[in-house]
């Protein structure tokens, strides 16, 4: 006789650590689908992080490249002090409301002038990659440009046990970036927005209709001041300076390339890798404001780029079993 076993554990009935599914709650608390079992739920809110390690390569990028990567309208690249310093960063998140995950991103200093003449200053993210599905989706709701990739972050060895580093990222079988080296703790100049509470973060969210008849672009802005409810004055990136390590350009080996699936290595024209800054921090991510929207309509005759049942280079890579 065959063995058929169903274990109908409902963890939300066993512990308050697990919220009941949205379908059993007020509809006001449904944030994403599906209401039977969403990819992430209200137990990610408020979205906090503890003891994450941020490792930011500081790279020099010319104005033409930064302008191309920063959508105008509505954004303009920052043209002030250290405008050409771009953050190219990895993060090891161990404790978050979305669980642990590894992350990568690029941040460019940019500004937006609203119709009333107010100037908003922020780091804009053209590229982001993560190892977990829930933080990718939760971030995308806020506008972050997240994809999934395979990411490695290693610090080990030397007198301090963390003197050597290795970072790598691959997707669909291609290496996007790898860097190795040794922290020498020499001074590295950070991007201009570092530590400034009047500099927030920008993202460009795209919401397409189910029939693809239109897509709305939404410029979202995350302030850097802690939300009032937390009753703490200061930057919502709370750095623990005793853990900070740095490496100068001469202490960094570096390789980056574009792939058929990810164009960052072609678009990010890097003039110089000026250094690496690595620090431990706690973080709160509040909900963003939407500063600007524009809708792009498609005609009923709109067709995409593909030919039915013909599969090209971008549709061919090793099949995955998932993570």
């Amino acid at each position: 006789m065959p063995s058929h076993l169903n274990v109908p554990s409902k963890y939300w009935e066993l512990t308050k650590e697990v919220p009941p599914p949205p379908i059993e709650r007020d509809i006001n608390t449904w944030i994403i689908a599906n209401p039977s079992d969403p990819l992430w739920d209200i137990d990610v809110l408020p979205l906090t992080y503890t003891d994450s390690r941020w490792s930011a390569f500081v790279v020099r990028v010319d104005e033409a490249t930064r302008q191309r990567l920063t959508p105008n309208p509505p954004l303009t690249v920052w043209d002030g002090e250290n405008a050409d310093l771009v953050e190219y960063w990895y993060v090891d998140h161990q404790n978050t409301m979305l669980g642990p995950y590894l992350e990568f991103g690029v941040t460019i200093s940019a500004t937006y002038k609203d119709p009333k003449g107010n100037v908003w200053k922020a780091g804009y993210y053209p590229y982001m990659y993560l190892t977990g599905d829930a933080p990718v989706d939760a971030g995308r709701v806020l506008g972050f440009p997240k994809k999934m990739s395979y990411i490695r972050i290693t610090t080990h060895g030397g007198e301090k046990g963390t003197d050597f580093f290795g970072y790598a990222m691959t997707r669909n079988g291609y290496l996007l970036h790898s860097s190795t080296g040794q922290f020498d703790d020499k001074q590295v100049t950070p991007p201009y927005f570092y530590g400034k509470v009047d500099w927030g973060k920008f993202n460009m969210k795209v919401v397409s209709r189910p029939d693809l008849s239109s897509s709305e672009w939404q410029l979202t802005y995350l302030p850097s001041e802690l939300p009032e409810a937390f009753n703490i004055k200061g930057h919502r990136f709370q750095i623990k300076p005793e853990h900070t390590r740095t490496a100068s350009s001469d202490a960094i080996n570096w390789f980056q390339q574009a792939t058929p699936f990810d164009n960052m290595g072609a678009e990010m024209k890097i003039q110089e890798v000026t250094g690496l800054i690595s620090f431990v921090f706690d973080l709160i991510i509040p909900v963003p404001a939407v500063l600007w929207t524009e809708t792009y309509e498609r005609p009923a005759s709109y067709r995409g780029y593909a030919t039915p049942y013909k599969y090209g280079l971008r549709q061919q890579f090793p099949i995955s079993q998932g993570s």
Partner: protein
Amino acid sequence: MGLQANEYSYPWLAEGEVPPLPLDRDRIHIISQGVADPVFDYDIVPLTYTESRWMAFVMRADINNMKGVVPTPIEVQDDVIEFWYVIHRNTMLGPYMEMGVTFSASVDSGDGQIYKAGYYPYMYLSNDSPIFAGKEPFGFPKKAAYIAAFEHGTNNNYFNMLMERRGYILHTANGRYSDKPLSTKPTFYGKTDWGRMNYRITTHPDVTKSTHEVTYLPSELPPGFGTGHRFMLNPESIRTATGDDIRSWYMSGTPFDYMGGQIPATELVGIISFTFNLIIPPAATIWTRVVERDPAKDFGALLYSTPFKYTMRHRFMVPQYSQG
């Protein structure tokens, strides 16, 4: 130390193997973020599939349990569930593995029309692009999981499936095809007047508003693709097994995934496997409800966790996306 190189070339562009770079296009050709390099791009449209292998367990569950996981206005029609795995070898989103659950359901759209369709309460995939191409425009309830599903042995007589997420096994089953007929099939099988439905929720970035929609994919082939069902089965590829041929079956609820706790099987009817081509057209929206939130009154109910305190739902092994 200090050895550095950046390879900026993009040779596939000159040979037409890849579409123009997103930053060189008109904005109507950007269908998802990031706008510099979308997670799914316009080279997936039209979205076609060739020689995918569908392996669908047919099971029954308590219909009250099924109704308990389905939101208004969707009505469950019967207690027969399609519990399926797919190997997608050739798709506009690349190859990937997929698992899903389909209920026979209907919606009264309020304008006198009744829509009949398979409704998806749960779906899992192995890759990011098909997850977000399904979730964002259409509302498919997709998550990422480890999925193994295959047939092997003489004449591919044996089948095995396994799905895991965050260290917990959600489901596994294996057995041998007997090619005996099943006592019942899902109501929507082969019917072009039964489409597919999803419940999409699009939340505004500031969380003050969520738009709920039922999206509907018709089953008739879209204009220009001929007539018939858009799931085009190869009848020679069909294999079946009855419940007694399913050697083992294990399904469980987990702290991260509720399916096993919500719809335990009351009967395994069998399995139907087939190879097929598919086209997924754009979806129509047949029902909409907007939920507004007042930050002063409604946000409190959203704040389930305690800042900087992490519970069992936040504790699991660091995920490594294996599509690296």
